Every structure is written in C-alpha cells, then in structure tokens.
C-alpha cells in the first residue's frame, strides 16, 4: 500500500526511537487519539454546517459572529456545555444512566475507524468492511434504550422505545442495501470496494437497481441517524427532548456529537458504496501528485451527501410512528428484496455497465 510520506516518516521515527513493541503500542494510542480529535472536530463542524444550512433554507444568515463566518460558534457552545453542571435524576439507575452516552460514542468511534478518508488515511481495513460498520452500529441502539430507561422519565422512556424500534427496523434496510451493492461488487472490504469503482462508480455500473438502492439508502440513513422527517425520538412538541431529556452538560453533548458523527458515517458509507470513495470523478487527478487529493475528493462527496440530508431536514414535516413503521415494513423491505433479486440477475446476465 502506498503511504503518504509524512505518515511513513512518523512511523519510522517512532520505531527508531524505541523498541518495536512499545512503538507499536504508542502508535495505536496515537491513532486512537487522532480519531478522537477527528471525532470532536467533525461533530463541531457538522453542527456549524447544520446551522448555516438551516439559515440558508430559512432565508437568514445563521451563526456569523464568532470567528470567520461563525466557524467558532460551535466551539464556544461546546465550552459552555463543558462548564455546565451535570444534573441527573435522584431515582435513576446511576450506573446505566452514566454508561449510556458511552455506548453511543464508542460505537460511533468504532465505525469511524473503518472510514476511508483517503487511500492512506484508513485505520482498519478489515475484510468484512461494510458489514462490520453495520454490526457495530447495531450495538449503538442499546445505548439509546438505556438512556431512555435509566433516566426514569416517561418522556425519555417513550423516546427511547421509539428510537429503538425505528433503528432496528431501518437497520434492516441498510443491511439489505449493503447486500445489494455487495452482489454487484463481490467483496465487502472497503479498499477493494473503492478500487473496483475506478472504471465507473457503482451507481453507474449498477444503473437502475443501484439508483433504487441509493434512494432506499438515503431514506433508511435519515431514519438511522434519527433526523427529520424521522426524528420521533426527540419530537419536541410531544416528548421534550426524547431519550436525552434528563441529560445535561457534557453527557448531552456526547449524544449530540454522536448524532452528527453518525450522520457523517452514514454519508461515508453512501460515498463508498455508490460514489467511489476517495477516487476522483473520471480520474481527472490520477496522474497528478497532489498531497491529500484523496481526502479532498472524499470530503467533497461526503459534504454533498450531508447537504442532501440537511436539505431533507428543513424540507419535510415529521412522520407519525405508525407511518414510519409502515413505510419500512410494507414498502421499503419488499422493494429491497425484489431489488436484490434484480441486481443478482443483472450481474448474472452481465447487464451491468462496464467501461
């Protein structure tokens, strides 16, 4: 694998400095710290982006006072949240109440490790790739259930149950979309998935069934990250703030950050599965040796997908819980099942577009 020279340099410098085993452990710690940093920065950036996009759609400016175009507004908000007192309910189950945010944070971080920021910046290229992300994020539901239950608050409990049901249902759709695209690709490893799209992205290679799968993925992804129009979790008019009503200060910020990082993860999966990951469109920058060019293309594509998700948020009204479940179990699931068969037929008969 080609590595960026800076990472290779750090790697060699560490190994020259100390024995191999301790250098290995130190490297693992450094990577973990780097990912924690990415996690925090991404969360803050996405919150800022959300507010700017909201302003754009509502014909106002959004945050624009702190720093250039309001970039430091969310950092100021985060500082405020850190300095806040942590309050809790007396009759709550304190162990589970405290543990719940960490379930969500940990699963989001574990999924982050799989995200291919570019060819070089890819921490964990396991051979079951996309399936690993899906399986890790299925554990995150437990955190939301716990937060809802351990708060000892009726609104929280209802919010938690709603999310749990919603996320379990829509996980199915995401899993099936992954199966559809895997049928086309023949692999689950993320680096191989991207490499196979060098001659045309999967959304072009798989044409009709791939586009259908992408549409389903966008719907299911919105539901999976608990965003409008599927944000029954924290339907303000009904439930206060849903499962995190009783959380304050940094514990609340964890939920908030994890929500946005999950949005980023969902968008990254979409980019990897449909839009060629860090590959340049039509290979326009393939010959040039620009540093961090993969990161640039990946960032651009993910930002575009995130913008669509935010567009959804400020466009559609909220669903009712029965409508939400009907949509998944009566429409998306059968469409998905047929779609898998169609995709398999396409691959079998060689009807996919290859350049």
């Amino acid at each position, binding site marked *: 694998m080609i590595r960026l020279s800076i990472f290779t340099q750090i790697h060699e410098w560490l190994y020259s400095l100390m024995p191999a085993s301790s250098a290995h452990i130190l490297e693992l710690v450094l990577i973990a710290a780097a990912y924690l940093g990415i996690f925090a920065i991404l969360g803050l950036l996405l919150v800022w982006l959300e507010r700017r996009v909201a302003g754009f759609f509502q014909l106002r400016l959004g945050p624009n006072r702190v720093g250039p175009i309001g970039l430091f507004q969310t950092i100021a908000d985060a500082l405020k949240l850190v300095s806040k007192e942590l309050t809790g309910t007396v009759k709550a189950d304190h162990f589970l109440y405290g*543990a719940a945010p960490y379930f969500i944070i940990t699963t989001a971080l574990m999924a982050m490790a799989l995200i291919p920021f570019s060819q070089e910046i890819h921490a964990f290229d396991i051979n079951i790739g996309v399936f690993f992300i899906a399986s890790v994020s299925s554990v995150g539901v437990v955190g939301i259930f716990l937060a809802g239950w351990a708060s000892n608050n009726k609104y929280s*409990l209802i919010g938690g149950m709603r999310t749990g049901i919603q996320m379990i249902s829509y996980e199915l759709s995401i899993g099936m979309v992954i199966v559809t695209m895997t049928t086309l690709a023949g692999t689950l490893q993320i680096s191989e998935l991207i490499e196979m799209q060098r001659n045309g992205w999967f959304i072009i290679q798989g044409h009709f069934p791939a586009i259908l799968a992408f549409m389903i993925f966008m719907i299911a992804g919105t539901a999976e990250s608990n965003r409008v129009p599927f944000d029954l979790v924290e339907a303000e008019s009904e439930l206060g703030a849903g499962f995190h009503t009783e959380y304050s200060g940094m514990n609340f910020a964890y939920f908030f950050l994890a929500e946005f990082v999950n949005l980023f993860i969902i968008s990254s999966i979409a980019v990897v599965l449909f839009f060629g990951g860090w590959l340049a469109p039509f290979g326009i920058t393939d010959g040039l040796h620009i540093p961090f060019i993969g990161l640039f293309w990946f960032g651009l594509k993910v930002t575009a997908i995130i913008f669509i998700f935010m567009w959804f948020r400020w466009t559609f009204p909220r669903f009712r819980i029965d409508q939400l479940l009907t949509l998944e179990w009566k429409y998306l699931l059968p469409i998905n099942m047929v779609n898998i068969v169609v995709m398999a037929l396409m691959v079998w008969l060689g009807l996919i577009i290859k350049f």
Partner: protein
Amino acid sequence: MERIIFYILSIIIVVFAGLSVVNRNIMRSIIYLLFVLLAFAGLYFMMEFNFLGAVQMTVYAGGIIVLYINSIMLVERINSPLDVAKLWRRILAGVISVAGAIMALFAIWSYDFTEVGDESSITIQDVGKSVLNYGEHGYILPFEVISMLLLAAMVGAIVIAKTKKRNAN
C-alpha cells in the same frame, strides 16, 4: 500483547457473567450479559474469525439483547429488585451449577487440544461458498430457508390468533 488482551477479555467474560447471574436488578443483568457477548466477539476478532465476530455483534449484542430489553420493558416491576429465592432452592441451584461446572471442566481437561497455527483469516468469499456447499458440512442455505419458513409460520399464527379490532362507533 495478544496474551494480555486474551486475559483481559477472559476476565471480562468471567466477571460479568457472574455479575449478570447474581445481580438483582434485571436491567443491569442484561447489560452485564451484553458485555459478556461483546467480549466474546472480541475473542473471535482476536482469532481472526472476523465474520463470526461481526455476526456475534449483530445477532447477539444488537439483536438478542435489544429483544431482551424490549421484552423486559413489558414485564411489571422492572424498577424494583427481584425477589430472593428460598434457601433450599438456592442450595439446589448451587449444587446443580457446581456439578455442571465440574462436568464441563472434566470434558475440557480430558479433551486433547491441538495447537492451531496462524491461519489466514477466513474471507467472506469462503463463507459464501460454504453456505452454498452441498458436500460435507454443507446445506446451510436450505437450513436457513427452513428457518425463514418457520418465521413466516410464526407471523401467520400471530395474525390468525390476533383478536379482531372492535369497530367502535
């Protein structure tokens, strides 16, 4: 390094398995069980059984535990600790557990374990081929199809047994 991780995971498994049995708060028992299952997934990942580890996380941690939580929420009095059983029952349970543990340990010790070298990790392609295999250790796909049939039968039974909604005028 691997040895240390193995011992950490083993301690997690033993300690939390014990805690999940003795804890009187049913919700906490489930969370301790979740830790046990996740540690098992960790063991699988350590042995490079990546697919098995991911399935362990999806099915047990993500599926079964969520199912448990859902069904426990339907149970009354989840906030109050469970009743302690009668003395003779506790003694009986203890005797049976110790007997079971001795049996399991005896079976483990009498089995002749062979050391497995560093095998290359099992890829998803291998898994797919063995699912469709019709030789020895094969016929997994038909087995899974039968389980789908059972699921369909269960859903059908629920639909038939469900009382019809009364038309409230």
